[in-house]
């Protein structure tokens, strides 16, 4: 009994030393995270309860910013736009799976060329991507409309027309993120054991059947990861819209602005244009809550469709 207890204590002590070492090793990252991420988050949360002028100096205003937030039609509009963009952006996931499956076909030549072509937009600066598409979408001189003119269609002013602007934006969003998703899916596919396909083939399953019965379920954890990442990314959309609508205040002169303005863009305007920083802080805190809520929902829903082996 006594020896057993002694051994137990010794083991606990050992654990403690080990834990201490563990903390020591994560300390640099942990400190960085605390100072550069967590502390600003805490500060922002605090500032969201204050009125904060252009040059610092804040006064406590309690829940004022939040009551204003719920009554502000621009917030509701920006939330709706952001959610629409996020939902439509999810179309990019099945698309990426299809392209990954096509590239993953055994015996396909030039796989690396395709991979590079798809991945190129991911490593291109978002601002450059946005500028390029702005020109492509130009109503009078853009390539898109010139191509449409060949087949006799008079194309709209894609990003200045409230009816088309959001879809035009989503296309660019999907185009620029598909490469990243595709690479992850490719890796996921290559990790699926060959034997499964062999067994299926023996049982007489064709390519398409194999894709739906093996590839898709085996990829579901990857798809889950991608959907979490892309939802968070879409909710924080800023640079693309900022450049495509017309940078800075000029954006508001875009007739489609009411359909394009995102939550982060509204935050930017309040924080850096109209010097309303306390309110801007409340806007991002609201966005943080929204992101957290949607992520929780996704984790809840995963039980229904994600298969872990």
């Amino acid at each position, binding site marked *: 009994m006594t020896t057993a207890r002694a051994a137990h204590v010794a083991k606990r002590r050992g654990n403690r030393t080990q834990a201490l070492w563990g903390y020591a090793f994560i300390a640099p990252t942990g400190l960085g995270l605390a100072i550069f991420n967590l502390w600003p988050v805490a500060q922002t949360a605090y500032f969201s309860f204050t009125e904060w*002028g252009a040059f610092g100096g804040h006064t406590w205003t309690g829940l004022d910013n939040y009551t204003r937030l719920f009554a502000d039609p621009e917030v509701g509009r920006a939330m709706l736009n952001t959610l629409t963009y996020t939902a439509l952006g999810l179309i990019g996931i099945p698309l990426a799976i299809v392209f990954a499956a096509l590239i993953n076909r055994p015996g396909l030549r030039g796989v690396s060329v395709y991979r590079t072509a798809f991945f190129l937009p991911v490593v291109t600066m978002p601002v450059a991507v946005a500028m390029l598409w702005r020109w492509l979408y130009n109503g009078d001189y853009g390539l898109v409309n010139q191509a449409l003119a060949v087949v006799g269609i008079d194309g709209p002013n894609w990003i*200045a027309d409230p009816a088309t602007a959001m879809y035009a934006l989503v296309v660019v969003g999907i185009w620029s993120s598909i490469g990243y998703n595709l690479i992850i899916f490719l890796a996921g596919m290559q990790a699926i054991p060959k034997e499964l396909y062999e067994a299926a083939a023996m049982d007489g399953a064709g390519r398409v059947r194999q894709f739906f019965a093996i590839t898709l379920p085996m990829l579901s954890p990857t798809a889950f990861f991608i959907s979490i990442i892309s939802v968070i990314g879409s909710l924080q959309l800023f640079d693309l819209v900022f450049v495509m609508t017309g*940078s800075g205040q000029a954006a508001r002169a875009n*007739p489609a602005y009411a359909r394009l303005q995102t939550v982060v863009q509204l935050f930017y305007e309040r924080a850096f244009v109209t010097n309303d920083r306390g309110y801007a802080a409340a806007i991002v805190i609201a966005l943080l809550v929204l992101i957290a809520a949607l992520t929780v929902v996704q984790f809840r829903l995963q039980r229904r469709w994600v298969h872990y082996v």
Partner: protein
Amino acid sequence: MWKSARSGAALLCAALLATACAGGEQAGTDTGSPEKVTLSYGVWDATQQAVMQELATEFTKTHPNVAVDVQLTPWVDYWTKLKAAVSGGAAPDVFWMNGPNFQLYASNGVIKPIEEQVDTSVWPKPLVDLYTYEGKLYGLPKDMDTVGVWYNKTLFDAAKVKYPADDWTWADFKEAAAELTDPDKGVHAVGAQLTSFQEYQYNTIYQAGGHVISPDGKKSGYDDPKTIEGLKFWTDLIAAKQSPDLKTMTDTATLQLFEAGKLAMYWGGSWNVAEFTKNDYTKDKVDVAPLPKGEKQATIIHGVANVMSAKTEHPAEAWEFVKFLGSKPAADILGKKGPIPAYNGTQSDWVAAHPELKLQTFLDAVAYAVPYPVSKNTAAWQEAELTHLTKAWTGEVPIEKAATDLATGMNDLLAKE
């Protein structure tokens, strides 16, 4: 009020012998060995960096103990960075200020009022007023700009329309606009753009006898029927298809359309000289005329001023530098290489640089110029201007309603200032 200087000596000192006096004063106040001081000078225009450096070197010649470090921050980041620097107590000692931002800085006490009596009659009055807050002058005007009508002579000739006369009116303008518009060639008379009120809407508002903001900066003028008339000037042009619609102007900037021969006229500032004389298409095709006269003649005048940080560690030296920058010798240097100097009588070099253009137009306009309308948080209602007027520009809402809605929104914002 600044004209009523106390003593002639102070006047002379400020106006004529700024540099010489400055040296003398320093010798008087600085007993003992002069301490080496470096002043930081924040500017945003890369094309003026060289001439700013030249001015700094010139200043050091008369103030050997003061070096000036010219710090360039591109326009897109300038105000964001400056706000952060001011909040963190790290603002440059001396920096460029513009009209829309001035009162925000002055009312928050982050720039230093000028204590010394200065003869302000050497600058156009609207610019002095622009940098005066609650009776105190905070900055000395550096340069200025006014607005004119740039026109494409080739398109005027093709449409057989006479070039604008110096005394043309709104009626003349509208008549010319109708004749210049050629839908077959995709040519519009003018682009009623919504992204530069300084060159477009503000001018016609004051020409119509309206106003943007009350003189005390407390009330919006957008519900004034005359102000609305000034806005309608532009929406009428769009409705008559003499201007491209807002969607087209969102996709392609009016400046680009003008430089592609798709617009016969472009309301633009004096700062466009560099652009139009450099551009291959416009360089031998354009000239400039005064803005047409409505109920009265008006053009918006604006200019940059040099101000001092309230927290500068070297207030005496910073003031000497600002005073030098506001002096005639400094304006003479600026006029040769930069924008129009604000100092009266130093602008001839600027006009002479391009004898092929009637640049004197911009200087003559100073006589009837109106200051750029501002308040403490100008940016807030400038955003509202766009939010509300966009709806009238697309034709979604009549201009009268958009303007009165804007007045309501702007009054709410002004009440919060």
